[in-house]
C-alpha cells in the first residue's frame, strides 16, 4: 500500500461535512498556519516540500509563490484552477466531490501565505453539482470561523468565491482563466506580463491546480521536509492519477511516485490489468496533451531501465522516446484500439477547443483533423503523413499558449511511434475500414504481467 495523504479519509462516511471532517483532524493546518506561522514560513515549507504543480506543467509551487509581486496597497489573489477539462483527467473532480473541505482547508492556508483576501475557485461549468458541494463547504467553514473576518483571531480575512466556467477547455489555461474570471472572452493573454505581476484585474495573482492546493494541507501538517521524503528525486509527495481506457479498474488512485508503470497497470491495487486477456498496445500517461507511448517504451525507457510513475522517469528520453507526467490522466489502449482513429479523436478535440487567436493553432488544428479523417476513412495518401508532420511542426512553439503544442504533440507522437499503422491505413483503405491493425512490432517484447 502506498501512502495516502489526500484521499486517505475520502471514504469516511459524512466526510463531506464539516463536523466529520473536523473530527477526523481537518483544519489542523489552518490552526497551525495562522497561529504559529507567518506567510513567509509557509512559503518556505512549501518550497522545502518540493511540491510541483499538479495542473500539467509541474512547476515547483513554492517557487511560483515566491515570485508573486507585492506592490504596496494592491490586493493579491489566489485562484484555484478547477477547470479540469483535459480528456482523461478527472482527479480534481473526485477530490472536490468527496472531500471538499480538504480543498477549502488548503485554500485558506495558501491564501494566508500569499496574502489573498479574496480567493477564487474557477470550476468547469459541467461540474455543476460540485459547485453546490463546494459552496456548502464554504458556508460551513464560514459558520465555524475558518473563513470570513479575522479568522481564528489572527487578523487575517479571507473569502472564497466559486466561479463557474462556461464549458471551454481553453479556460483552464491560466491567463485565459483570468480573462474569463474577469468576465471577458477566454482568450489566453500574451505573456509577459505574467500573472504573478499582473493577473486578475491587473493584480498579482497565483493560479494553482486543485490538487496542488490540497497538498498544502499535509505539507503544513507534517512539515515540508517530511513531505519531501515521500517519492523520489524531484517527484515528491503523492500524486492523484485518473486511470481510464482498457483497464479492469478505472478510477482515481493516489500513488507515491515510486511505483513502476508496469505495477500501476497490472497490479490489483491499481488498474488491475487489461480486461479480456488483451495485450497492452499503447498508453497516454499524462492526459491527452502528452505524447502517446507504445507498450515497449512505456514499460521500459529507451535505455532499458524500468519506467516509473514520476515526473523524471515518464519524461526520460525526451519526446523522442519518452512522454510526460502532465495532469495525471492515464489512458490505456489495448491491442484492439486504432491509433489513427484515436489521434483523430484528439485532433477533433483540439480543433474544437482552440480559442482561435493565433493563426497556426486556429487553422492548423482544423487542417490536421481533416487529414486524419481522410486517413481514417480510407481516403488518405502517403504524402498526407508527411504533411501532418509538417503541420504539427509549424504549430508547435509558434503559438501564444501551450494549447497549440498540446494539439501538435499527440499527432507528432502518433506518427513517430506508429507510422506503420498510418501507412497501413493508406495502403489498405478497405481493410482498414473492417479491422484494426492490432499490435505491431513496437509492442514487443511485451512484459509478463506482475502481481
Amino acid at each position: 500500500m502506498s501512502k495516502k495523504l489526500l484521499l486517505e479519509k475520502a471514504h469516511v462516511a459524512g466526510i463531506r461535512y464539516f463536523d466529520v471532517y473536523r473530527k477526523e483532524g481537518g483544519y489542523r493546518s489552518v490552526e497551525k498556519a495562522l497561529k504559529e506561522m507567518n506567510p513567509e514560513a509557509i512559503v518556505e515549507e512549501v518550497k522545502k516540500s518540493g511540491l510541483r504543480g499538479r495542473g500539467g506543467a509541474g512547476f515547483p509551487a513554492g517557487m511560483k509563490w515566491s515570485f508573486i509581486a507585492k506592490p504596496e496597497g494592491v490586493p493579491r489573489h489566489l485562484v484555484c484552477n478547477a477547470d479540469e477539462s483535459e480528456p482523461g483527467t478527472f482527479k480534481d473532480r473526485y477530490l472536490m466531490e468527496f472531500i471538499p473541505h480538504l480543498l477549502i482547508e488548503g485554500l485558506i492556508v495558501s491564501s494566508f501565505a500569499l496574502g489573498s483576501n479574496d480567493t477564487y475557485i474557477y470550476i468547469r461549468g459541467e461540474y455543476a453539482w460540485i459547485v453546490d458541494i463546494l459552496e456548502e463547504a464554504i458556508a460551513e467553514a464560514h459558520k465555524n470561523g475558518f473563513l470570513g473576518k479575522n479568522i481564528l483571531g489572527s487578523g487575517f480575512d479571507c473569502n472564497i468565491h466559486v466561479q463557474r466556467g462556461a464549458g471551454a477547455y481553453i479556460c483552464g489555461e491560466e491567463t485565459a482563466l483570468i480573462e474569463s474570471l474577469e468576465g471577458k472572452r477566454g482568450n489566453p493573454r500574451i505573456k509577459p506580463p505574467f500573472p504573478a505581476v499582473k493577473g486578475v484585474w491587473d493584480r498579482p495573482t497565483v493560479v494553482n491546480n486543485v490538487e496542488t492546493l490540497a497538498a498544502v494541507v499535509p505539507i503544513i501538517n507534517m512539515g515540508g521536509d517530511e513531505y519531501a521524503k515521500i517519492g523520489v528525486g524531484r517527484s515528491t509527495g503523492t500524486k492523484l492519477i485518473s486511470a481510464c481506457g482498457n483497464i479492469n479498474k478505472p478510477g482515481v488512485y493516489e500513488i507515491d511516485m515510486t511505483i513502476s508503470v508496469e505495477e500501476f497497470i497490472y497490479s490489483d491495487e491499481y488498474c488491475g490489468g487489461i480486461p479480456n486477456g488483451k495485450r497492452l498496445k499503447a498508453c497516454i500517461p499524462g492526459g491527452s496533451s502528452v505524447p502517446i507511448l507504445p507498450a515497449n517504451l512505456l514499460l521500459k525507457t529507451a535505455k532499458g531501465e524500468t519506467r516509473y510513475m514520476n515526473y523524471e522517469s515518464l519524461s526520460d528520453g525526451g519526446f523522442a522516446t519518452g512522454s510526460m507526467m502532465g495532469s495525471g490522466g492515464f489512458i490505456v489502449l489495448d491491442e484492439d484500439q486504432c491509433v489513427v482513429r484515436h489521434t483523430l479523436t484528439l485532433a477533433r478535440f483540439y480543433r474544437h477547443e482552440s480559442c482561435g487567436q493565433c493563426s497556426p493553432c486556429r487553422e492548423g488544428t482544423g487542417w490536421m483533423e481533416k487529414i486524419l479523417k481522410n486517413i481514417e476513412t480510407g481516403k488518405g495518401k502517403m504524402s498526407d503523413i508527411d504533411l501532418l508532420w509538417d503541420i504539427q511542426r509549424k504549430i508547435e512553439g509558434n503559438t501564444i499558449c501551450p494549447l497549440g503544442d498540446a494539439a501538435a504533440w499527440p499527432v507528432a507522437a502518433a506518427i513517430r511511434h506508429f507510422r506503420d499503422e498510418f501507412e497501413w491505413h493508406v495502403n489498405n483503405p478497405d481493410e482498414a475500414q473492417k479491422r484494426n491493425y492490432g499490435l505491431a512490432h513496437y509492442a514487443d517484447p511485451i512484459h509478463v504481467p506482475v502481481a
Partner: protein
Amino acid sequence: MSEQQLFKVTIDNITIEVPAGTTILNAARKIGGDVAPPAMCYYSKLEGSGGKCRTCLVEVSKGSEKDPRPMPKLVASCRTTIMDGMEVKNITSEKVLDARAGVVEFLLINHPLDCPICDQAGECHLQDLSYEHGSESTRYEFQRRTFKKHDLGPHIQLHMTRCILCYRCVFTADQLTQKREHGVLDRGDHAEIATFIEKSLDNDFIGNVIDVCPVGALTDKTFRFKNRVWFLKPMDAHRDCPTCSGRVTLWNRGDEVYRVTARKDEWGEIEDTPEGKPGWICNTCRFEKKKTSDWIIEGPRNINRHSVIAQGHYAGKIGTNKPTETFAAVNDGRKPHLLMDIHSVSQVNKPEVKLSLIDGPAHSDAFKKNND
C-alpha cells in the same frame, strides 16, 4: 528633460539604439526595409493589439548583455520588448523564414483567394505577405470555410470569409467608439467577427475599422466594386471638420472622388496628425464628402514605388518614395538572389526607365524613347 535610457539592439546584423521599452518590431521598423517583420495584427495605434497572427515571429539569438542566453522559442516581435545588447535574427534566420512560411500557409488555407473580385486587392496586406513569403501552390485539399456576408450598418460590409481574425477592428471599435457592439463570437476555426445579433454599427468613428482591416473583410459600401485601387490617384486633402482632424486621402479618377480614407504610413497604419494624435477620420468625411469641392487638395500622396498603386500614380518627381533597400546591407553586402533577371526577358522593364516619372500611363513610346 528626463533622460531616456537607450538600449542597443542588433537586428539582422544591423545595430541601432532605441529607447528602453521599444518592441523588437518597432526597433526593426526604425531600420526599415526587409528587416522589419511583416505584421498582420499589430497596430501601433491600438492598445493591446498584436501577438496573434504570428507573422512577425523572430529569433532572439542573444537575450541581452546581462543574460546572453538565446530565447528557446521564436517570439512575436510586436509584443516582445528589447533588452540592452539583444541580438535578433529576422530574415537571416532559417527558422524564422520557415515558421513564417508556415504562418502564411495557415492564413491562406481557408482564405477564399477571391482577389479578382475583392475591393482590397492592391492594398491588401495578405496579398503582400503571400507574395513575399507564400508558396505558389496550396497543400490544402479541403473545402474552404465560408460565412455569409453581413452589413454592419449602412456603410460597412463584413465579408467574414476573408477575415484573418487579427482583432484590429475589435480594438478599434473598443477604443474609438462609445458602445462596442461587435466582437468575436465562437472560437477556434469557427470564430467570427460579428455584431451582437446583427446590430448595425452606428457611431461617428466606426468607419475606421475599414482602414485597420488588413484584408478585404471590412469594406466601404460606398466604394464597393466601383473601381480598382490601382486605377485611382491618391491625393492628400483636408477639410475643416468639426468631428475629426479632417486630414484624409482622396482616391480620385480624373476629378471624381471614389473614396476617402485616412492617411496611412509606410506600414499601412493611420498617420498621426501634426499634433501627434492618430489621424482617425469620422464617418462624414469618409462616406459623405465625395466631391472635390468638399476638400482642399494638398497634392499627390507619397506612395511606395513597389506598390501596385504607384502604377496609376502619375506623380512626376514628387510623390513617390524611393525605398531603402536593406537586403544587401544585412546579407554582408551580397545582393539578393534573383531567380531570373526580369530585365533580360522583358521588353518593357528597363531599369533606366522610371515608371513613376512618366507623365501618364506607361506606353511603349516611353520605352522606345529610352532605348534610343
